[in-house]
């Protein structure tokens, strides 16, 4: 298992250089008309998402080293950062993201970068699998000593086997989700691993018209006093 994971790490490292180069080459085009400008923008965005996924894969390997510090993190700020980054992509795909923050506890105990990736992966998933006529939802609520972040999509519902794994608390390995074409399950695997590291509860609720992905994070009690 160890050598298998290290193989992933090496592959991730090898993939980063060409992805970064593609991104820079896209920047270097001059005098583009609007259509080609759109293509350039898409090339940059796709490269950046791929680089992020490669970086996340490297982080999965480094979780064992315990290098990611847990600290009080503003959950609303992280959700805003992610939704801002993906906002353009939602617009480009003619989809909308509805946000509702009703939590009173502002700070959770988490690692900022890992939490960012969890929400990023959930939202990216919602973007891919929500129909154009529907909107994905990003909700933050309080829930008995935890803050719950819910990302609801309106697409094919989650298969029972994956739902069971999530109910258990984590996804063992990336598994292609048959009812969601093009899905490798990698984003869910990464989100699951990061959540587990942060002692967060990860889960999903199956709906007839989609899925809600949930991460529940412990409230940071000390620092909440100062907010």
């Amino acid at each position, binding site marked *: 298992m160890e050598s298998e994971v290290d193989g992933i790490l090496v592959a991730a490292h090898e993939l980063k250089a060409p992805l970064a180069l593609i991104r820079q080459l896209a*920047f270097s085009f001059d005098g583009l008309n609007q259509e080609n400008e759109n293509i350039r923008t898409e090339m940059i965005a796709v490269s950046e998402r791929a680089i992020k996924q490669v970086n996340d894969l490297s982080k999965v390997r480094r979780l064992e080293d315990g290098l990611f510090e847990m600290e009080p993190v503003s959950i609303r700020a992280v959700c805003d950062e992610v939704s801002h980054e993906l906002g353009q992509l939602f617009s480009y795909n003619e989809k909308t993201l509805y946000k509702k923050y009703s939590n009173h506890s502002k700070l959770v105990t988490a690692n900022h970068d890992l939490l960012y990736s969890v929400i990023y992966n959930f939202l990216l998933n919602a973007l891919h699998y929500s129909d154009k006529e529907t909107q994905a939802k990003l909700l933050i609520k309080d829930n008995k000593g935890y803050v719950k972040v819910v990302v609801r999509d309106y697409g094919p519902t989650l298969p029972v086997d994956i739902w069971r794994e999530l109910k258990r608390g984590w996804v063992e390995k990336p598994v292609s989700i048959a009812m969601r074409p093009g899905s490798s399950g990698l984003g869910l695997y990464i989100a699951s691993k990061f959540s587990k590291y942060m002692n967060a509860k990860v889960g999903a609720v199956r709906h007839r018209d989609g899925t809600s992905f949930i991460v529940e994070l412990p409230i940071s009690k000390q620092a909440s006093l100062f907010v």
Partner: protein
Amino acid sequence: MIFIIDDDKMMAECIKKACQKDDVKIFSNAILAMEEISDGKIPDLIFLDILLDGPDGFTFINELMSYSDTANMPIVIVSSLDYSKADLSSYGVVGILNKDMMTPMEIKKYVDKYAI
């Protein structure tokens, strides 16, 4: 004059283009750049990759620091490794760019400041 030291030729060309200057030289390793400096061609600014064929970027920086005329040369590190939290100002490093996420505007900002 600006030096770019990077073993990835295409990446170096992208950085060169972002500089928007004529007087830019690309070196694929630190030894070639050091030879040029030894010949008296002192750049105003260096964009330096860290993982290079042969001596790495930090070896190159240490070499520069050991001579009085190059000890304070402005260097911008350009790397895929994460140095975002490192303070390398004592090495003459005036900036750190992450290859994965840098933009041409960020590169140009250093050119405008150090290589007018």
